[in-house]
């Protein structure tokens, strides 16, 4: 009996050690970037793990935020100008459509829905040339509106799927009662369904916002002027044009871009995870 207990304890210790060392190893690259960003270049040239001497500084961050051409602070503003409407608009549009697909019957409904869902897997490269040409024709190239439009359309398929699944799980009784009282479809949607859907909006919104914030490809083909670029586009620019990479500056810039989705994830973890696996587990 005693040896069995010892065996169990041994296993527990080993499992804890393994799990925690994996976590630690996984954190090393982030720790390295953080360390490099917060110390002067002279201290980290032989590896950031050399901790002597150690003089923490915020110079790199200030430099990244106030770069003359590629300033990350400007990138922040641009990213927000793009990401906020490109999150709110598709969620509203997709909520309408998701509700339509869930509650109304019409010919070919399921096929139409399935085709839209299939579009989720199309790579961005597949639409790049025509989207670029459309934006040229609309005179929207190098204009943030083009990115808002593209991200809105691009986000719709998965948000429609997500919202439809959410509405399917809602109880019908309240809506039916309202209908008996003579409320119209739109009124039911705005007065009854939308308020109930706020948690779903949070889940879809956080994922869509992160997707737009993290996007690089669409911004790369549609935005060309430095002071219109979102933050992601500026990151590689911080390294370009120098003989030796300024790792302090590049690390600081990376952290500044990374911190926004990270903060959202930490603050709204519940919604984030629910949004990500919502459609994989629920039917």
């Amino acid at each position: 009996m005693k040896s069995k207990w010892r065996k169990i304890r041994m296993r527990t210790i080993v499992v804890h050690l393994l799990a925690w060392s994996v976590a630690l190893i996984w954190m090393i690259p982030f720790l390295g970037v953080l360390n490099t960003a917060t110390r002067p270049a002279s201290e980290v040239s032989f590896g950031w793990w050399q901790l002597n001497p150690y003089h923490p500084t915020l110079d790199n961050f200030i430099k990244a935020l106030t770069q003359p051409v590629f300033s990350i602070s400007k990138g922040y503003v641009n990213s927000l100008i793009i990401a906020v409407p490109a999150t709110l608009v598709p969620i509203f549009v997709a909520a309408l459509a998701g509700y339509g697909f869930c509650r109304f019957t019409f010919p070919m409904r399921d096929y139409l829905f399935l085709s839209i869902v299939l579009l989720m897997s199309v790579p961005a490269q597949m639409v790049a040339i025509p989207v670029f040409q459309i934006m040229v024709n609309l005179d929207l190239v190098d204009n943030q509106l083009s990115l808002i439009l593209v991200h809105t359309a691009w986000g719709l398929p998965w948000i429609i799927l997500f919202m439809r699944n959410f509405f399917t799980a809602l109880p019908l009784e309240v809506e039916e009662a309202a209908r008996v009282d003579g409320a119209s479809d739109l009124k039911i949607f705005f007065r009854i369904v939308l308020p109930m859907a706020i948690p779903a909006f949070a889940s879809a919104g956080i994922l869509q916002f992160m997707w737009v914030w993290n996007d690089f490809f669409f911004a790369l083909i549609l935005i060309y002027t430095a002071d219109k670029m979102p933050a992601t586009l500026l990151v590689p620019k911080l390294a370009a044009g120098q003989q030796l990479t300024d790792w302090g500056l590049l690390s600081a810039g990376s952290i500044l871009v990374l911190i926004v989705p990270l903060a959202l994830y930490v603050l709204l973890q519940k919604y984030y995870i629910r949004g990500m696996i919502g459609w994989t587990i629920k039917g």
Partner: protein
Amino acid sequence: MSERLAGIRRSLRLPSFLRRGGGDRRTARLGPRGRKTAARVVFLAPALVLVMFLVVYPVLQTVYLSFVTSQGTPTLGNYQGVLTDPTTVNPTGLPWPPPLGTLIHNALWIAIHLPISLFFGLWLALILRDVKGSSIVKSAIFLGMVTPMIVGGVILRFLFEEGPGVVPAFFETVGVPSLNKSWLVFRETALLGLIFGSVWLWTGFSLIVYSAGLTTIPKDYFEAAKIDGTPPHRMFFRITFPLLRPMTLVIITMTLLWELKIFDIVYSAVGSTGGTRNSADVLSLQMYRYFVAGATNPGYYGLAAVVATLLTLLTLVGTAWLFRKMVKR
């Protein structure tokens, strides 16, 4: 027992619209069909217009572009041009070192990155069930998924660069000085460095999905099996892994799509050329270069369209496979 298993299976089964006679039957109760049709168009029209205009039309237009010359005459020359180009498939480079061509690079990415990140995530999800503070461990590993991939690429470059990088310094310390070099600069190591590095970024996905999947398996199963004296590996192959099948399918598909579409990481880690002599080049990057070249020479748009179409076909194969597997059950 088998009845309950079937119940669990059913509750795990994926999107309801895929089930036979899918859709919401309760809709029938909403009143006579076709009532207020005009008002209902309002619900679907905005989404359909946007998707048609900026997704469906561009997809079809790209397919069209791949089959015509820059003058608009029909041709298969674009396909021939891309498929015989050493940038796409480079038989003279086989078996090693790269460049082997973008198509083969993407295939290598799938062959190496998919199994490692899938099984490593599964293993972690299994052991983390008995670990205190497992949510912190999960968050640490999930960080890579939250990271913008453009930043992920910068971090990989940092990680593998001689001097500031941990990986070369590590190999120097353990006595393999030949690997103490900037991995992403040399064509022998650039592609492998990026693939292994992307395991670090992506394992969080399979970990989180499997962890969520494990919570849906009732504890009784494991307890019953334990009382019967089932050895752990049998428990895994007979109970855990089969019940996690939906998660496995989703992880495989999403990972496959991610590997096929990989762009940002490579762009920021080795640049738009795909590194020294295109040794870490991938399909999406190749497409982007053709797209840029198209601005001065419209003939390149045809080639860009071919690469994009090939990429889409590959992703559709992956997605179709998932859908079929899910509906079959």
